[in-house]
Every structure is written in structure tokens, then in C-alpha cells.
């Protein structure tokens, strides 16, 4: 059977793809910012925070890192309503992404914190700072700088993972491709376009992270 690819047939669906790109971007942006925030909080608890909270955070990190995102998403979207927590598709997707990224980011950031030279803590302490002041003003920024490339990669992985949010009818890029191929049966073309869109988004995201890095970390080098 001879099959010829026909991308022209997709032209009329461009607005649907555009919507998909917007939704995937929103998921990644909101999920990324809140997820990294949650990751910082958890990393703080595990390194310098209240000891009573540490087992809880450890459990959270282990459970998330050892179960598939798809199951986490379904549990949140389908499971939580039965205990009285109903979320819209978009809310559930964002919550799932924040919870997922939070756990990975926590581990990555923790490694950055643990690489802090002891002298930095001591210098902060000798200047009469509290532990929290040392963490916020002395430890955190260089720690983030150390792991910024790893954190950037993780956010991109989470963006790729967000493709499964289409399964709860979040209208992202994958949803657009699913929708289009069900209409015109040009499945292969639709998914090629979707793949390319993800590829481009990943390139843009990496550039954004790089630029953000140069703003947050004015110095290229972290002192040993």
C-alpha cells in the first residue's frame, strides 16, 4: 500500500494546535514555578528544616519518584473526588505536575545544598545570622546555581510528561493531535506535527532557563 504524507490536510487545524501549544505552555509554566517552589521547600526541610517534618517529606518524595505520572494524575483527577476533592481537568493537571516536579526538584536541589562548603555556613553563623537567614541569604542561590542545568532538564522532562494530561481531556498539544487524527485520520502527520511542537517548546524552554540563570546568577563560577 502506498501512503503519501499530506501535511496540507492539517492546515485547517492550525488553531487547534495553537490552543494546544498555549495549554502545554501554561501547564509547564505554572507547574514549573510552583513545582520548583515546592522543591525548594522540601529540600530545605530535608537539609535544615524541622526534623519532625523530614519523614513526611521523605515519604512524599519516594512515593512520587517511584510511581508513574499517569497514575498520579488519575489518582488526583478520578480518585480525589471520592474523598470530596473535586478539581477541574486543568487544576488536576497542574496539581499533578506541581506534586511530581516538586519531588524531583527536592532531590536535585538537596544535592546542591549538600555541596555547600562548610565555611559558608560558618561565615554566616559568625555574622550572627540564624539558620534560616543563612539558608535564604547564603546557601540557597549558590545551591540553585550548582544544579541549574539538572533542574532545567527536569522541567523539560516534566513538560514531556504533561502529554498524558490529554488523557483527562486537558486540551494540550497531544489532545490537539488526538482530536485531529480522529477527524481526518491523518494520524501520523498529526503526531509528527505534535512531536515537532514539543521539540520546539523544549528548545525555547531551555533557552528561557539559560537566560533566567544568567539573571539570577550573575557570576558564572561558583566558588569551590
Amino acid at each position, binding site marked *: 500500500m502506498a501512503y503519501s504524507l499530506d501535511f496540507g490536510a492539517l492546515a485547517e487545524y492550525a488553531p487547534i494546535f495553537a490552543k494546544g501549544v498555549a495549554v502545554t505552555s501554561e501547564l509547564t509554566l505554572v507547574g514549573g514555578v510552583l513545582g520548583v517552589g515546592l522543591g525548594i521547600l522540601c529540600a530545605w526541610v530535608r537539609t535544615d528544616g524541622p526534623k519532625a517534618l523530614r519523614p513526611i517529606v521523605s515519604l512524599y518524595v519516594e512515593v512520587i519518584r517511584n510511581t*508513574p505520572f*499517569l*497514575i498520579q494524575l488519575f489518582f488526583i483527577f*478520578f480518585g480525589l473526588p471520592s*474523598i470530596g476533592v473535586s478539581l477541574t481537568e486543568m487544576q488536576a493537571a497542574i496539581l499533578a505536575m506541581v506534586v511530581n516536579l516538586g519531588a524531583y526538584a527536592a532531590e536535585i536541589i538537596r544535592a546542591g545544598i549538600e555541596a555547600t562548603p562548610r565555611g559558608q555556613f560558618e561565615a554566616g553563623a559568625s555574622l550572627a545570622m540564624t539558620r534560616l537567614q543563612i539558608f535564604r541569604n547564603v546557601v540557597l542561590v549558590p545551591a540553585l546555581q550548582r544544579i541549574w542545568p539538572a533542574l532545567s532538564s527536569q522541567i523539560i522532562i516534566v513538560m514531556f510528561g504533561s*502529554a498524558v494530561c490529554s*488523557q483527562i481531556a486537558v486540551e494540550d498539544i*497531544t489532545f490537539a493531535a488526538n482530536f485531529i487524527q480522529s477527524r481526518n485520520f491523518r494520524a501520523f502527520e498529526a*503526531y509528527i506535527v505534535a512531536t515537532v511542537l514539543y521539540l520546539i517548546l523544549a528548545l525555547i524552554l531551555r533557552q528561557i532557563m539559560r537566560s533566567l540563570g544568567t539573571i539570577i546568577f550573575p557570576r558564572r563560577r561558583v566558588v569551590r
Partner: protein
Amino acid sequence: MSPFTTWDIVRNLLFAAQWTVILSLVAFIGGGVVGLLMLFARTSKRVAARRLAILYIELFQGTPLLMQLFLFFFGLSLIGFNVPPWLAAGLALTLWTAAFLAEIWRGCVEAIPRGQWEASSSLAMSYFEQMRYVVLPQALRIAVPPTVGFSVQVVKATALTSIIGFVELSKASTMITNATFQPFVVYGFAALMYFALCWPLSKSSQLLERKLNVAHRNH
């Protein structure tokens, strides 16, 4: 009351979990073989081979696995194969796994000091002999922890194959949920089973890495 007991749910999930395990093993072993080929290409002296390997790795690492699954599922049927979901799932996961393993192993090979390459080439070994007898045996030791660690990603990745219709733990969860209307319980148990598969792998990867670090320090 639901006519399904909790045991019914667990029993059916456990049955489906077998397929998660089988698919994971296939992807991991197949991915290991292809990954090793890619590793040779990636570290080869030939520019064309290296470029090809880089392109392969970038493509599979730089796009969502779900897209790869769809493209295999629909793409293979385009060129005339009527592919069942298990075949598309197995193929896509194998190639995806290979890309990541090749990259992990490249890091391990590059961690071997240049002197080892120079010494073995001074002994008139060919590239494959150098790899086979000198570099890989040393790289293997440091490769074990990250390789075991990546197996966790493979197990979790199998969940995506449910979306193209392969019946494993995730797909079974959805089917059982539709029959029992107990999503909280069903997905809760599914998560528990994934955890039971993945956590021992994560932990042993951590322990192996710690052991390796200690051994290195005592050198």
C-alpha cells in the same frame, strides 16, 4: 454496594502487573542491546557514526515518549504492518530505553582515564579490543548504579503504553475503575504496586552508588 470485593480488584491488578513486568524486562534488555550498539557508535572514531548516534539520542531524549509511542503505533501501520499495541509498545520503549542507556554508559566510558586508552592502543589493540578488554570492564563497575536507577524510569514509562491500548497495570486500573466506580481504591492499589516494583530498584541503585563511592575513596 459494589459487587466487587477489594480482593477482586487487587487480584486483577496483580494479573495485569505481570504485563508491566514483562514489558519492562523486554524494553530493558532490548534497550540494553541497542544501547550498547549506540554506545559503540557514539564513542567511535568515525564522525558519521558519532553523528548518527547523537541524532538518535537527541531525537529519543528530546521528544515525549508518548509521541514516540503514537508514531510507532500509527507509523508502522502506514507502511503496511498491522501492529498490535504490544509490538508498538515494545519497540518504542526499547528504542527509547536504548537512547538513555547509551548516554548513561557514555558518561561511564568517558570517566575512564585517557591513559587507559593510550596504554591499550600502545599495545596495538583495535578499538573493539580496547573497549572489550580494557575500557568496558572498568566502566561496568561505575555503570551499574545509574543503570539500575534508570530501570525505575523504564518501569514507570510502561504506564504510557496503556494509552495506545496495551493492557498492563495502568490500563487495567482504568478498566477496573470503569467497572467498580472505585477510582480512589483502584488507583491507590495500582500506585502501591508500581511502588513495590520501583522502590527496591531505586534503593539498590542508591546503595550501590554509595558502596562505589566508598570504594573509590579508599583507593
